[in-house]
């Protein structure tokens, strides 16, 4: 199943929740923010938000800046 992750094509076996994706990617959910199809996903909704074919996902965190 094709999705777009941080601007690049990404494969996932089947629809899965944001939580599952983060787990798969070994990303600590507490330190990132997730956008699904241009809408921010609240942390509380990580389990219930499902990523489907063709979805666009952005996962960001804080980096050094001025």
């Amino acid at each position, binding site marked *: 199943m094709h999705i777009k*992750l*941080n*601007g690049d094509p990404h494969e996932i076996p089947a629809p899965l929740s944001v939580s599952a994706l983060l787990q798969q*990617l*070994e*990303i*600590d959910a507490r*330190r*990132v*923010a*997730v*956008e699904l199809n*241009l809408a*921010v*996903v*609240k*942390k509380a909704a990580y389990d219930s938000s499902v990523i489907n074919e063709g979805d666009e996902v*952005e*996962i*960001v*965190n*804080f*980096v*050094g*800046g*001025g």
Partner: protein
Amino acid sequence: MSDSFVIAGRTFASRLIIGTGKYPSHAIMKAAHEASGADMATVAVRRVDITRQTESLLDYIDTSKIFLLPNTAACYTADDAIRTARLGREAGMSNWVKLEVIGDEQTLFPDNEGLLEATKLLVKEGFIVLPYTNDDPVMCRKLADAGAAAVMPLGAPIGSGLGIQNPNNIRIIREQATVPVIVDAGVGTASDAAVAMELGADGVLMNTAIAGAKDPVGMAKAMKLAVEAGRLAYLAGRIAKKSYASASSPLTGVVGS
């Protein structure tokens, strides 16, 4: 005399706001932050590198002491800035944002049109907006009218280290502004920060001047003292400038006279 620095009802101990970019190492950044005495630091919002685990910036920032201010650096449209601000809020669990809408790659000067538009929308969404703008009193007033919690005029291009290029403008912005004025960008060395504060600025935000110094920790300490010195001098009321000399020792009672 208490001289507290308050933005949107939140009191900060230091009038120096620091960045987290371009340090030789996270460890040096952490030491510089401590030396600076700052309790607010800007951070950028960027895509996670999913190909490899990198150590997190946050491991090197004591967020119990330092308040994080997400920025929208590198956003060239109001939409990108708004989108980045929303992600920053979610990642940071705070609704503050250093709002940048860049209008030119060479100077990194703001696109004030887009900045004003994004400020209005984000204020509606409940953000505490600190917009980075240029040293224009009129634009600063419009941003404050739009609900900005503070205005952040630039002293010189980001990272240029040229110092305050137009002191007269900064002074006038402070005289006219109804919100805190934070000089953002352009500081190159300690005296530049002191000058900004002597002009009446409520605070100074800098990143490269500290991170890019040969000794970032030493420069951070210097900036801490310079900001305090400039503020004290502003409050103490400097002497007027004279074109000629004025003796500091008595002119009479000299022996042999």
